């Protein structure tokens, strides 16, 4: 790369978020350069819960089957309070979706697959490179230091995916606003042959770890995640010592359990974000933009949704769409971050009561929950990460029609079984899609890829999906002939009670100005 050429996109940080974005861009014909400090993918399992929406995004990017095959699917959870199990619950989502509520899978597996897919797609990944300077002007000049020395890269767009301690954020002098929770947690990934069921177990104040909480979760390859709450007074250095960690694990599992430590980390909770994610030609995504407590699995999952939201918009802008399209990334993902911060803060407040009154309420909920099911929804050991509904998005079509049971504008497309062993979401592709409910008919001047969702099969028509269970029509509540326009990231952009080429074109033109940019 000659220093005088301008890269379309430079991505700082080749972790989960940066690689997801690079792969998405490559599929849209934009070859990004990715810089990463590390020589290889990160050690330690880190993010382990990949939620349904993340699995659907990775399915679109071609990694879905591997994640479902390798990942551990679980539905059952148990909650313990002191010495007793107070209740169990089943998270089993409704049937008729390809992806489960989530799978457990080590982040390094996912990153390794992302690297392979990125390299195959022509992404330029430069390892052992770090950003040492950023000049954010009409374009971005980034000084990088690595094995071949220090040099300057010029890029139309710099995407900072460089994590919670983002150098890019620091060098632009941007404040990271929010709350630090006065508590510490120990993560131990333990390899063992154990016959615990594949369930999520959460203890409040157990006899083996008094006054604190503990979480046990299964990963592939006989690895178990154990998360010990330590309290604010704990010394991270002391707590990381293997003999200390092993003593805690033996207290929990018994003296004679045979295990080895895979990875140990001590962390504090933070819930904070940048005021804005778009700063001129520099855009922040993932932990660089927002940092969340891990209960509820929102860090990795929200970062992947950032990438999913940004990829198509960036590609459209590079192809000539107005730059203000990227303002919608800011509006949508800031709102999503706030929703995640709200949930993460509430979980943390339940798990770590901050006053005698808060502890009394927490323990009251747990005591009631053992006997009375009404109190169980109040127990908060982390709420399941759900896809953001971009209800206030500036992109949502103000002219959209409505009908009873219609998917809300800005909500994510709902999956349903179609044909034989096939799924609706598999057919959406990387661009805009119009779902047309009902038997196929000739479409006048379609400006977008159209898929008919029909109650009867039509052999030989790839654009007609057979809604053999009727679930698709029911989930979209659509009248015969009703249409749902989906964005490239599969969020609902508009709805039409009947097909109207001009209205579809105008809903898309509001987003990308010229339809040719992203058909």
């Amino acid at each position, binding site marked *: 790369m000659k220093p005088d050429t301008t890269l379309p996109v430079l991505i700082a940080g080749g972790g989960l978020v940066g690689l997801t974005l690079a792969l998405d861009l490559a599929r849209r014909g934009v070859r990004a350069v990715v810089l990463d400090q590390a020589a290889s993918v990160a050690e330690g399992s880190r993010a382990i819960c990949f939620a349904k929406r993340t699995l659907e995004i990775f399915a679109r990017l071609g990694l879905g089957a591997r994640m479902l095959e390798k990942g551990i699917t679980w539905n059952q959870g148990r909650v313990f309070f002191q010495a007793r199990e107070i209740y169990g619950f089943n998270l089993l989502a409704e049937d008729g979706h390809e992806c489960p509520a989530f799978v457990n899978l080590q982040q390094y597996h996912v990153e390794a697959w992302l690297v392979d897919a990125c390299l195959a797609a022509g992404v330029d990944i430069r390892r052992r490179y770090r950003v040492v300077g950023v000049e954010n002007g009409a374009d971005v000049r980034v000084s990088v230091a690595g094995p071949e020395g220090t040099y300057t890269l010029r890029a139309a767009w710099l995407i900072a995916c460089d994590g919670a301690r983002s150098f890019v954020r620091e060098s632009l002098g941007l404040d990271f606003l929010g709350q630090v929770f006065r508590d510490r947690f120990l993560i131990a990934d333990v390899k063992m042959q154990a016959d615990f069921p594949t369930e999520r177990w959460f203890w409040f104040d157990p006899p083996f770890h008094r006054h604190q909480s503990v979480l046990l979760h299964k990963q592939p390859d006989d690895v178990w995640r154990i998360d010990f709450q330590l309290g604010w007074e704990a010394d991270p250095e002391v707590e990381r010592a293997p003999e200390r960690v092993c003593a805690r694990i033996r207290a929990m599992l018994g003296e004679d359990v045979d295990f080895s430590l895979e990875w140990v980390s001590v962390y504090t909770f933070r819930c904070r974000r940048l005021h804005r994610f778009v700063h001129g030609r520099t855009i922040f995504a993932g932990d660089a933009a927002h940092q969340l407590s891990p209960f509820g699995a929102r860090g990795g999952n929200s970062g992947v949704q950032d990438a999913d939201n940004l990829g198509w918009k960036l590609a459209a802008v590079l192809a000539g769409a107005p730059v203000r399209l990227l303002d919608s990334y800011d509006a949508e993902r800031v709102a999503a971050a706030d929703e995640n911060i709200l949930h993460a803060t509430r979980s943390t407040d339940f798990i770590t009561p901050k006053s005698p009154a808060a502890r009394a*309420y927490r323990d009251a909920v747990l005591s009631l929950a053992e006997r009375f099911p009404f109190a169980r929804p109040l127990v908060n050991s982390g709420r399941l990460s759900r896809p953001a509904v971009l209800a206030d998005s500036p992109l949502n079509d103000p002219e959209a029609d409505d009908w009873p049971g219609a998917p809300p504008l800005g909500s994510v497309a709902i999956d349903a079984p179609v044909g034989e062993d096939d799924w609706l979401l598999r057919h959406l592709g990387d661009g805009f899609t119009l779902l047309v409910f009902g038997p196929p008919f000739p479409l006048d001047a379609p400006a977008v890829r159209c898929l008919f969702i029909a109650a009867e099969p039509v052999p030989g028509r790839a654009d007609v999906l057979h809604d053999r269970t009727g679930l698709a029509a029911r989930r979209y509540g659509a009248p015969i002939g009703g249409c749902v326009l989906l964005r490239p990231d599969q969020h609902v952009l508009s709805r039409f009670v009947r097909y109207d080429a001009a209205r579809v074109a105008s809903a898309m033109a509001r987003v990308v100005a010229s339809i040719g940019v992203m058909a």
Partner: protein
Amino acid sequence: MSLDLSPRLADPDALYAALIAAHQGLDEAASRRLDAQLVLLLANHIGAQDVVFQAIAIARDLAAAQEGATA
């Protein structure tokens, strides 16, 4: 729905006595937990969260005012 602030109890003295009796012999932490359990049981019985939020707001205002008066 609006929080009903009219007097509705048939035997207020008995209710008051029952609340005090429930706390008898409990230490500070257990007393707090008892009150929290009562609040949660009654809040769930009421169901309408906006009503409970009105009650929380009134109780909070009173507590803050009393704290200011005694400080």
